[in-house]
């Protein structure tokens, strides 16, 4: 079986898992109950998506690979998630922006993925895109609300953009294994949609920012090691146990 397909599926699985893990940190700590529920809900959707991708990857790899062995026993240099999704939650504005920038991309990606020639990926993209549409709607509304809210919320959004924008370029730089969807072709439409939302939010779209990359190839920021330490603790401490 093609190792490119495996790597690509793992890239999708890792990205959704790590973003789910980050969002779930909000559970019980959100700014208001309704939004606590919403961010946790998105976390759960993303976790469901990552499980689908891991299960598919495990079936491609064969042997004793499972969704759990892939999520819990691979190391930080093997993880292929986007750098964007491993960034810290920061404040609510930063979490919202991270979600919006990724969801807007994911929506376009999964639209294309539904046209690829792998039936499994098509089916998973078809299921996930319904959830993603909800995530885009929710997060874009919050970007607008915070951008065009108070002076404080506006300036916090500027800071969030400053923090996260440099990780957006990676979404459109294909990794060696990333041949199923031509991600570079999604960039213009993504930028157009983001520009529209930012305009409504009275936020500037940054120009000429140097883009960080490497996540897809297992070269992460220093944050991932800590995420995995926590995520994988139980499986590492009790190897081989069933839960």
């Amino acid at each position, binding site marked *: 079986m093609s190792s490119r397909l495996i790597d690509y599926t793992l890239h999708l699985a890792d990205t959704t*898992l790590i973003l789910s*893990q980050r969002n*779930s*940190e909000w*559970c*019980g*700590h*959100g*700014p*208001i*109950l*309704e*939004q*606590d*529920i919403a961010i*946790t*809900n998105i*976390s*759960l959707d993303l*976790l*469901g998506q*990552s*499980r689908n991708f*891991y299960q598919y990857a495990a079936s491609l790899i064969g042997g004793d690979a499972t*969704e*759990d062995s892939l*999520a*819990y026993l691979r190391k930080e240099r093997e993880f292929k998630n986007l750098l964007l999704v491993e960034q810290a939650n920061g*404040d*609510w*504005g930063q979490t919202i922006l991270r979600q919006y920038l990724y969801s807007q991309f994911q929506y376009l990606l999964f639209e294309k993925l539904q046209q690829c020639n792998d039936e499994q990926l098509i089916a998973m993209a078809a299921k996930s895109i319904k959830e993603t549409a909800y995530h885009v709607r929710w997060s874009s509304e919050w970007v*607008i*609300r*915070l951008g*065009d*809210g*108070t002076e*404080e*919320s506006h300036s*916090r959004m500027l800071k969030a953009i400053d923090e996260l924008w440099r990780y957006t370029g990676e979404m459109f730089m294909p990794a060696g294994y990333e041949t199923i969807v031509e991600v570079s072709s999604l960039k213009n439409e993504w930028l157009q949609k983001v520009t529209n939302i930012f305009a409504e939010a009275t936020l500037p779209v940054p120009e000429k920012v140097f883009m960080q990359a490497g996540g897809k190839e297992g070269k992460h920021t220093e944050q991932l090691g800590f995420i995995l330490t*926590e*995520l994988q*603790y*139980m*499986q590492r401490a*009790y190897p081989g*146990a*069933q*839960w």
Partner: protein
Amino acid sequence: MTVQDFEQLFQQKIDNETKIEPKDWMPDAYRKTNIRQISQHAHSEIVGMLPEGNWISRAPSLKRKAILIAKVQDEAGHGLYLYSAAETLGMSREEMINDLNSGKAKYSSIFNYPTLTWADMGAVGWLVDGAAILNQVMLCRTSYGPYARAMVRICKEESFHQRQGFETLLVLSRGTDEQKAMCQDAINRWWWPSLMMFGPRDSESTNSDQSMKWKIKRKTNDELRQQFVDMAVEQVKVLGMKLPDEKLTWNEERKHYDFGEIDWNEFWNVVKGNGPCNKQRLEARRKAHEEGQWVREAAMAYAEKRRSKQKAA
């Protein structure tokens, strides 16, 4: 009609099992007791997210993680129902939350215990949710309509979680020696606090008599506690584990299990704020509220801008 007439009419309704609805006349004390109880119940759902939320990032498999997230999310939803039910009595959710954050309002003392291992997720599901369900099933017949209806909805979801909690322990009980020990340890730590969830002994319970008469409560603390013990003793056998009580024995005469004395000293200490996690739990809630202030303000400001734009258009 005089106040006495109103009171008599009210009690007749109660006696006839007619639900009391928000616009009906009710004694002040009935209103206050319900506000206190329903809002405490809502707070318990919210604070209760913390001990379990504590393990989301470390759940040992993706399936368990998904179950746990779904569960904690449901709890937030239960909190919302309950705040709505309490609001029908004329207190705003904001006021209630302020009372929680200031320490004026209470929440279930069980959530002041720490979740130290993964097995605690199972024990909380089985014992804590199990105790909550007995209480809530009773409250499905409580006399205040909005509360009773909230309970019907909540019970359906809650019993699902309880089965999942039990199943979590069942897997551990059939696992490695380390997992079995983890399972037993969690049961040991959660058993007595779960019994305390039913509140003080009937003889010490200040609100009990009036609450029974108004059918806010349908069973006493001790009745519910006994029912819980009888149930748990049978269930723990399936796990092949032990309940940490030497005095637990079948009483043929009563047709119930006798059990040992609860450490009431510990109970009152936790209620008064001196449990292992009282301080952390309240601080986590306060922090979320304070750090969320700018978000809520922004949402309000934006809504206001939109309103004036729509007016102008």
